[in-house]
């Protein structure tokens, strides 16, 4: 029987940071960035237990950390961050998640809300036609394995070289839209087959496209640098590496479960399966995960191409959509950080957490029909290995949502707020209703107050689009 974690087990560090002291098999303490009010909700599920499990992983440095949108996952909690020593530490697919490089891209226009409103329905319809969900039907084009391998190696950059984007797109993308260590040779045939017809597809669940307006600017200087202004129309894309990434995770979790014994690793949850980063299995997973991450960047690039196609149909060739930024929130990366005053290369797992280097834009989606945010990384973010939150975080299961909420009622409620919904599945709408998520404003307030990233702009939706 599951016993919820007690608040008494936690020590308050400050108003937005709580700590579980090291005990039992923990090799480091565990920390949660959260407000006192939000903490009670978090303690109801297994997410804190999962955070403590994460703190037992070999080679973890500093703290096992969780962001304020923490919720129960498997293996790591969603919202978890863990940095590993490259020599002594492990790599865990459970610290990345099945949707490798699930992430966000934001496109900006030069148009204001007033200018777009007469065309909003038409634009949303065109975008929905152009960007498929890929749920079973897949795209018409099935890539050859050779073409797919080039995407796995080159990411968004490969598609841009082929004419599906502009130089600006990869320049404004985390890691320039590809990880160099990617190696298609360590990605299984199963994974490649799942990915052949899914480049440029949204997927289901919480993946979406939104036409939004910049409702409020908090940081004028950064907003100006990013080319954002109040009333401006922007387009947000949320998706990841689709079936290809899911299969890479499946393949390597299965492999690591078999091999962990060889490295004397014993874990409380099989989904934490891991191997030493320097082992051949660890290196192969890192190269395969990097290929999956590249696929996700290419996927968001192709979706950008389709959105631009729809946009041009309505507004012509002379009004552009430019990429503000593209950032992952499910990934493991080798990064330089300060450890005990010395610069050191670490492997940072972020599962439902966003990289937030100083001055780097951070994109945080809200739930359907609620606000999203542009934040910027800060120097103070070093405390969390320069990581911040990734979204609102669910509070209700999908099944409970479909049982208690009506898709049509949600559409009506959003319509009353002036938000258009383009989605073929009523069930999908009920599952993603705003009521089943934490309050995004409260989540963002925590990372802002804790100094992990600062608010730049608040974006509100005009149209929510799920693929056909």
């Amino acid at each position, binding site marked *: 029987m599951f016993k919820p974690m007690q608040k008494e087990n936690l020590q308050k560090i400050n108003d937005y940071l709580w700590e579980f002291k090291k005990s039992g098999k923990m090799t480091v303490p565990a920390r949660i960035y959260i407000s006192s009010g939000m903490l009670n909700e978090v303690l109801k599920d297994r997410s804190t237990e999962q955070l403590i499990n994460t703190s037992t992983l070999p080679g973890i440095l500093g703290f096992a950390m969780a962001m304020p949108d923490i919720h129960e996952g*498997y293996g790591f909690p969603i919202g978890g961050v863990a940095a590993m020593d490259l020599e002594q530490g492990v790599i865990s697919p459970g610290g990345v998640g099945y949707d490798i490089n699930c992430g966000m891209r934001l496109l900006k226009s030069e148009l204001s809300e007033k200018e777009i409103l007469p065309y909003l329905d038409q634009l949303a319809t065109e975008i929905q036609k152009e960007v498929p969900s890929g749920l079973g039907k897949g795209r018409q084009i099935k890539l050859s394995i050779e073409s797919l391998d080039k995407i796995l190696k080159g990411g968004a950059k490969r598609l841009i070289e082929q004419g599906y984007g502009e130089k600006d797109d990869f320049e404004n993308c985390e890691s320039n839209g590809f990880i160099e260590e990617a190696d298609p040779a360590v990605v299984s045939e199963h994974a490649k087959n799942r990915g052949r017809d899914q480049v440029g597809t949204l997927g289901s669940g919480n993946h979406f496209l939104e036409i939004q307006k910049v409702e409020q600017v908090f940081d004028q200087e950064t907003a100006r640098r990013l080319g954002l202004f109040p009333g401006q129309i922007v387009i947000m894309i949320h998706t990841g590496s689709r079936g290809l990434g*899911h299969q890479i995770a499946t393949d390597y979790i299965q492999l690591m479960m078999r091999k962990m014994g060889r490295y004397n690793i014993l874990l409380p949850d099989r989904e934490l399966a891991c191997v030493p980063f320097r082992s051949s299995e660890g290196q192969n997973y890192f190269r395969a995960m990097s290929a999956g991450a590249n696929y996700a960047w290419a996927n968001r690039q192709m979706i950008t191409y389709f959105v631009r196609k729809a946009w041009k149909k309505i507004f012509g060739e002379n009004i552009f959509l430019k990429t503000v930024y593209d950032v992952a929130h499910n990934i493991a990366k080798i990064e330089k950080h300060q450890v005990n005053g010395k610069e050191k290369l670490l492997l940072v797992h972020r599962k439902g957490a966003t990289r937030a280097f100083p001055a780097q834009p951070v994109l945080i989606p809200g739930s359907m029909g609620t606000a999203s945010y542009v934040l910027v990384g800060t120097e103070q973010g070093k405390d969390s290995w320069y990581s911040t939150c990734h979204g609102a975080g669910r509070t209700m*299961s999908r*099944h409970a949502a479909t*049982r208690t909420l009506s898709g049509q009622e949600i559409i009506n409620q959003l319509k009353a707020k002036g938000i258009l919904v383009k989605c073929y599945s009523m069930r999908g709408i009920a599952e993603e209703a705003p009521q089943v998520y934490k309050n995004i404003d409260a989540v963002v307030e925590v990372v802002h107050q804790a100094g992990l990233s600062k608010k730049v702009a608040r974006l509100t939706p005009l149209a929510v689009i799920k693929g056909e």
Partner: protein
Amino acid sequence: MENNSCGFKILENHPADVRVYVRGKTKQKLFLNALLAMNKILDPQIRTRVKSISRKIKIKSIDLNALIVDFLNEVLYQVQTNKEIYFQVQFKKFKDTEINAELIGRPFESLKEDIKAATYHNLEIKRKKGFFETMILFDV
């Protein structure tokens, strides 16, 4: 129990993913019911006026708990790449660490939900009152 006639129940106690309870009189029946639970989540629009199709699968795993997850993930791969949904399984070989089987199914038009994977999270097959039972968490 909701969906009892099918030997599974979709639970509401996991906020992000989908947790199901599955049971069966035999291990083979447990595996089939887990597959049917997965179909329920995927919610396919099946093409009716076409012949049924069969696909052969082979799986080897470290134990029975891993085997059911690996079986579901192999079926999921077949579903997604062949655009077919499977509702019967003929087990040619069934050991606690190995399966050879034939999946019987039909093509579908589309799925309403995507499943990323069946997970090993806290999964343990137990025998209780003459039934094999387990919880399975699907990442959706």
